[in-house]
């Protein structure tokens, strides 16, 4: 199985592609905790953990298993990160300190 060649950052990419590819890892890991932390009062650390883990895991798994699927892996990872943030935050106890 030639994982390396099928992964998103496999070489022979143009400058344009290379810069765009590198945004994906940040999209699926860091964007949701940033935005939720600023704009959603109920966002918790547990929500952030779940968001990062689900976002990265979904993205990497889909990128390896079916990189050309109907739903792009980065988009699926992004949606998983949102779900993780919501699920994790709502299941945790109320935040001790008000923001």
């Amino acid at each position, binding site marked *: 199985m030639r994982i390396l060649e099928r992964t998103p*950052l496999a070489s022979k990419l143009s400058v344009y592609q290379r810069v765009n590819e590198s945004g994906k890892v940040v999209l699926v890991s860091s964007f949701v905790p940033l935005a939720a932390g600023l704009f959603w009062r109920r966002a918790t650390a547990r929500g952030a953990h779940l968001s990062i883990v689900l976002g990265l895991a979904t993205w990497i798994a889909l990128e390896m298993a079916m990189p050309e699927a109907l739903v792009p892996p980065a988009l699926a990872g992004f949606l998983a990160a949102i779900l993780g943030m919501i699920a994790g935050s709502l299941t945790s106890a109320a935040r001790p300190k008000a923001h």
Partner: protein
Amino acid sequence: MLLWFVIIYWIVSVGIGIYAAKWVHNTRDFAVAGRRMPMYIVTATVFATWFGSETVLGIPATFIKEGFSGVIADPFGSSLCLILVGLFFARPLYRMNLITIGDYYRKRFSRPVEMLTTLCIVVSYLGWVGAQIKALGLVFNVVSDGQITQPWGMIIGASTVLVYTMLGGMFSVAITDFIQMIIIVLGMLYIGWEVSGLAGGVGAVVSHAASSGKLHILPALELKDVLWFFAAWITMMLGSIPQQDVFQRVQSAKTEDIAARSSILGGCLYFCFAFIPMFLAYSASLIDPAMVKANLDKDSQLILPNLILSPIVPIFAQIMFFGALLSAIKSCASATLLAPSVSFSENILKPFFPHIPDHKFLNLMRVVIVGFTVLVTSFALSTDASIYKMVENAYKVTLVGAFVPLVCGLYWRRATSLGAMLAIIFGLLVWIGFEAVNPDGTVPPQLAGLVASFAGMIVGSLALRTLQREATT
């Protein structure tokens, strides 16, 4: 003559960067320019950072092949990203008074969130910086007519940018970005005017592009096309919001209003000026169709430099173009060297030295920048495709290194820090070992690394417990 102008410009701009380093006295000055930059400097540094080799060489190459719908990520997504940052993110983040985006994650959530997002952010810069260093090598090679080889071009370019970035941090980067923005704006406007004359006017070029369907933005109404188009767009638009380079520029502003407004203005300027390289490259298909056709099959990134170097373009216009191109790459390279190094020092290294005095921490940041530059340059230089691929796959590092410690630290009560260290070491060693020895075996290397990482966590956590128990009994 072109080469001499480039050399003089390079020496002067690097010299100004080194001079600006005299204002740096502590890590705050180094990372966020002491939070005292006026609006025109912040706008310039936002604009110049994003206007890099991908804007001048990458976007036009993709545009010629795929039209507007192919460049939805950059410039459409990227300029919207800066505008969104200005509208929604700049003010609350500025008020928190932080040095890095990782600090925000620690304050709002937890230490694991800080570590993991910082790792992802640092990794995401590797390909970006590598691309700028390669582009520097290419441009030095072209303007010296081959006298400077590409590898030497990369070394000269990376080391000179390193010198002032390391000494002056955000201060030097901001001041040089201001000068570079002026050169980019003047150079692009002048060369656009010159080339539109050669191609028969702006109207002729635009109507030719429109008639060949290049100006359609929306993709075909197929579900898959729409989804992929949408993903490319938000990857750049939202994925670039938590980037340290954007954050650093917002934080370096003098006031909250300046932070927000200059991000919006920088985004708008970027959007306007990103069209000029596209226009130039498309004009080439009217001016010299044979050259464009030949390059389309090989490397469409060379269409624009080839057009500018053709004898019909006057030497003054060539100087302006390469001045602007070098400025664009230089500001992008300095920003993308500084941002991940500051993040790495502040959010990964600093917690291991809790009582480090500020001046020593400043030196640590400088050492990290040097290390990062040497690393990225040597990878950019390396002609061994497998090493290069491995770096480009660097996000797997998070899978084999950081995933297990994060999950176990959160959800396994018996996890210890020895377990976490063994997990990282086992995971990385096994992954690199498999990647080197048997990359195409039945077991994918990163999967083996992940399993080893779990094993390390269990062994480390349980063994330490047993040792402790023995010691106490």
